[in-house]
């Protein structure tokens, strides 16, 4: 006889809900999302859960398993002690629509505030471009006229492109989760997006004022929970948030740089 898992799953909406106990057989290699699907199949076809790829790449099945934010499709059942209930809840920082499905549309509204990629003006020649490599003009291949940049430059921003928008970082960030600063704060996901644009070698957009004022970077006190829960292992704090904080310091808080800008405005 197969081993049995005891699941306590949140059933309800944003205003009213309860934890309901279900018992499902455990199969080898089973993940929490499989157990939720077993509940749907055996007891409750109306149990709402968002899922898609079952491979940790679509970011749909975010939830809180025993209080920890996780992708349910990547959370193996055999790591939980047999016989102890596994508590499955929707992510806390966003309103519950039904059962385990939450309304994450706030994130799409924040995303719209961020100006998209803006290509630097074309350099007149490759030699000019090399001379101005750290300047405002982009480089193009002399034969194909395609924009080009080095692998080293690509590597840095490539990490940020791994984001699957599961919003676990947004969920665990205490500025949103505990302080509910949704109106003043963008959250780690969008600091990653801004970093991917700001550090792009061919982008000439300026989003530092936006990230400081509208996305509220100063609210982040870098407690690194976003990095700890990221299923793609993006170094959100070290590679996105802290470099953005340093760029904001360069522009707005460094007294000597401010003085130098007054004395040498053209430099």
């Amino acid at each position, binding site marked *: 006889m197969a081993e049995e898992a005891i699941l306590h799953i*949140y059933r309800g*909406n*944003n*205003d*009213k*809900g*309860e*934890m309901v106990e279900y018992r499902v057989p455990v199969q080898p290699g089973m993940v929490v999302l499989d157990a939720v699907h077993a509940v749907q199949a055996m007891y409750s076809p109306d149990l709402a859960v968002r899922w898609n790829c079952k491979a940790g790449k679509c970011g749909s099945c975010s939830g*809180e398993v025993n*209080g*920890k*934010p996780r992708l349910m499709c990547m959370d193996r059942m055999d790591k939980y002690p047999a016989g102890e209930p596994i508590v499955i*809840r*929707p992510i*806390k*920082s*966003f*309103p*519950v629509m039904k059962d385990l499905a*939450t309304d994450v549309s706030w994130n799409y509204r924040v995303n719209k505030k961020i100006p998209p990629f803006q290509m630097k003006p074309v350099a007149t020649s490759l030699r000019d471009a*090399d*001379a101005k*490599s*750290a300047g405002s003009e982009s480089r193009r291949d002399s034969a194909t006229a395609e924009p080009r*940049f*080095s692998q080293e*430059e690509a590597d840095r921003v490539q990490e940020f492109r791994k984001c699957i928008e599961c919003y676990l970082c947004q969920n*665990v960030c*205490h*500025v*949103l*989760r*505990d*302080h*509910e600063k*949704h109106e003043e704060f963008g959250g780690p996901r969008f600091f990653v997006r801004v970093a991917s644009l*700001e550090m*792009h*070698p061919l*982008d000439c957009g300026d989003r530092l004022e936006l990230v400081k004022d509208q996305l*509220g970077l*100063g*609210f*982040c*006190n*870098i*407690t*690194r*929970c976003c990095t700890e*829960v990221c299923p793609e292992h993006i170094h959100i*704090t*070290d590679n996105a948030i*802290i*470099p953005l904080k*340093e*760029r904001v*310091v*360069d522009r707005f*808080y*460094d007294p000597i740089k401010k003085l130098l800008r007054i004395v040498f405005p053209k430099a």
Partner: protein
Amino acid sequence: MASNAATLREDSLGQTQRRDLWWVQPVAMAAAFIAFIIYATYRGLANADYMYGHGTGKLPESAYFLSPFYSPLLALPSWLPAWLGPAIFVMWMPAGFRLTCYYARRAYYRALFADPPACAVAEMCKKNYKGERGVWIFQNLHRYFLYLAMLLVLMHVYHVVEACRWPAEGGGMRFGVSVGTLVIAVDLLFLSLYVFSCHSLRHLVGGRLDCFSGSSGESRYKLWRCCSALNEHHGKYFWLSLFTVGFADFYIWMVASGRIHDLRLF
């Protein structure tokens, strides 16, 4: 915006659905911070037994050793009250560097201010949260403390060199190493790793650039890569250097006060 569902509430400090031992790390870190602050404050105000060796009046046959809490040793004017020792005028520099350090901020916001104590655990005070926009805005001065910390590393190099120069029997100096020399050399090693893995330094050497091509770009990319490799272990270096600096001071205190003998190895 956050869910109002009654069963999802995390209202009071420490309330969580987590079942693991999430409180162990913040409690251990808080204990380490408090122990170090008490010890460093006591030693900074003690104003005694912080150096020995030739030229100090204590153990003249030994090389010159100075506690890292008192480095660089300042000559204070005589009109200052006796309890105001030289450490008070020095310790604000490493203290400022550690206080504004990006890793330390994570550690003490969690351990000492429970803001939050751990991920997905309710925190102490939910009202008037300003993050690093309010009183904590001074954290943005970290880069200036970095410059001072780099000068302090240079001073520590000088003290390690001095700790290798032992008075020779026939006069003059000769090379020598004691347990004390190794203690302050290890302190220098971890202090250097801590300072050179700093997030602000990583930004200054290359992180602020978008393009690494061109004449200076490639060298700055290499510097940035080195700094990034060290930066991955910045937290470890923070704790190791905190321990070694405290231990180096303790060792020099014990030898200078005559409680133990500094064993010369060669």
